[in-house]
């Protein structure tokens, strides 16, 4: 009876945790994807030699903040510019002939692991010999960085609240369970049973409650997640171009061990600490 109440309590908490985890993981993945699209552009001094450019490239490669970088020659820059600005009026571009107005626009495009490190990298790049200018999209980087931090704080807060609620409820249900068996515990203690002997069944029960209480919502969430993504994509078609939901296996690869450890941990802690209060006989 009390075990069922505990399992239900645990399952509800782990379900909420799992739901929240899946949402946060997807958000983080989307933010990460956006971050990866934020580039820093390094432009060089007019008198720079190809060898110096290559040396700067080597320095960039060594930086831990960098996830990828590529060199854009003056011709690449002009071609890209022409495609964007002379679209439909290609004859205007042809008017330039072999002259490249962007002759001094060779650059490196650098992509970062984490946009919050953009400042450090930019400062480093600005101090390199041969670097004329470092262009970056500060607003996007700051927004993404702030958003990432916000998600981090909100997740930590909600997870903490859920954990406290779960420990409190489990501890309560174990207390009721112990109250029912208080006489038995009292007899055990007077007969000479050790604390371990008295506590063991409650702790094992707590761990089992944790295991079952986390396995059930995991199974439910697993079934729900795939169906929900399909449903969202079908019902809200426009979202598919904006959002890339993570596959169920990616989310659950992390969620399953975390939820099981949480469930078992809460079950263990809840029963262990609650029994300790009743062992001082």
């Amino acid at each position, binding site marked *: 009876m009390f075990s069922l109440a505990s399992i239900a309590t645990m399952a509800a908490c782990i379900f909420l945790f799992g739901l929240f985890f899946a949402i946060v993981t997807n958000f983080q993945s989307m933010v990460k994807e956006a971050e990866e699209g934020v580039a820093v552009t390094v432009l060089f001094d007019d008198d720079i030699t190809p060898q110096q450019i290559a040396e700067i490239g080597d320095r960039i490669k060594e930086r831990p903040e960098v996830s990828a970088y590529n060199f854009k020659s003056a011709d690449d820059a002009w071609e890209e510019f022409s495609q964007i600005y002379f679209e439909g009026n290609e004859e205007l571009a042809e008017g330039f002939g072999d002259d490249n107005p962007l002759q001094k626009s060779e650059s490196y495009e650098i992509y970062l692991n984490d946009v919050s490190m953009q400042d450090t990298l930019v400062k480093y790049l600005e101090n390199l010999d041969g670097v004329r200018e470092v262009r970056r999209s500060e607003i996007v980087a700051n927004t993404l960085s702030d958003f990432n931090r916000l998600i981090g704080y909100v997740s930590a807060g909600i997870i903490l609240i859920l954990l406290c609620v779960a420990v409190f409820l489990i501890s309560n249900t174990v207390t009721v369970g112990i109250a029912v068996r208080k*006489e*038995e515990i*009292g*007899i*055990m*203690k*007077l*007969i*000479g*049973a*050790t*604390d371990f*002997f008295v506590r063991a069944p409650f702790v094992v029960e707590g761990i089992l409650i944790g295991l079952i209480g986390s396995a059930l919502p995991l199974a439910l969430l697993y079934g729900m997640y795939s169906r929900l993504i399909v449903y969202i994509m079908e019902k809200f078609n426009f979202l598919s171009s904006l959002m890339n939901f993570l596959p169920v296996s990616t989310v659950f690869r992390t969620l399953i061990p975390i939820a099981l450890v949480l469930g078992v941990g809460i079950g263990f802690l809840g029963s262990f600490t609650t029994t300790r209060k009743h062992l*001082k*006989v």
Partner: protein
Amino acid sequence: MIQLEHVSKSFSEGIPALNDVSLHISEGEFVFVVGDSGSGKSTLIKLLLKELEPTSGSITINDIDIRKLPHRKIPYFRRNIGCVFQDFRLLKDRNVYDNVAFAQRAVGASNRSIRQKVPVMLSMVGLAAKYRSFPKQLSGGEQQRVAIARALVNNPRILLADEPTGNLDNNNAWEIMNLLEMINSRGTTVVVVTHNMEIVRAMGKRVITIQKGNVVSDSLVDGMGGDDDEN
């Protein structure tokens, strides 16, 4: 065996439950502790079981100063003391056999030991035939016998009985007392808290009288009701 020196126990300000009690109980003795309700008899039993800590004084049992006993060693200390209570304290959802076996399991005895000792104990208390019965199917006297079997199955050197006949009629009370006397004759030290003065007078044992937390007399009764020897 049991030595109390200047033991006092107070629960709050006011009259102490026990006041400067000193007494000695030797190995193999049978002792009655008598007194009115609230005189401190049950407090004495709880102190001996280390359920309570004395406010002052020292208690030595089986050469162990129990005030200095760390919490983790209390279970091992209690295994040398069997205890029986007025309300029997049997597990209602287990049968006679399992109630006695429970005490063996609680001290980590092997299944083999349980299979050997439990039937012997049940035979000793005269309940071998009722090993499958549940507490509610037994009379008060029978339930107390089960409690005694449970208290003795781990071979304690001391048996503490707190009002063991308090819930029993006269016949059953006598049966329990005879059983306790038989247990004592086998070498176990028996301390019985009671207010059944008829039995106390008739048994002819050492009687410690407590009033308002003080030991007011400690004497050997001659079995006919008169004091034989004042300690």
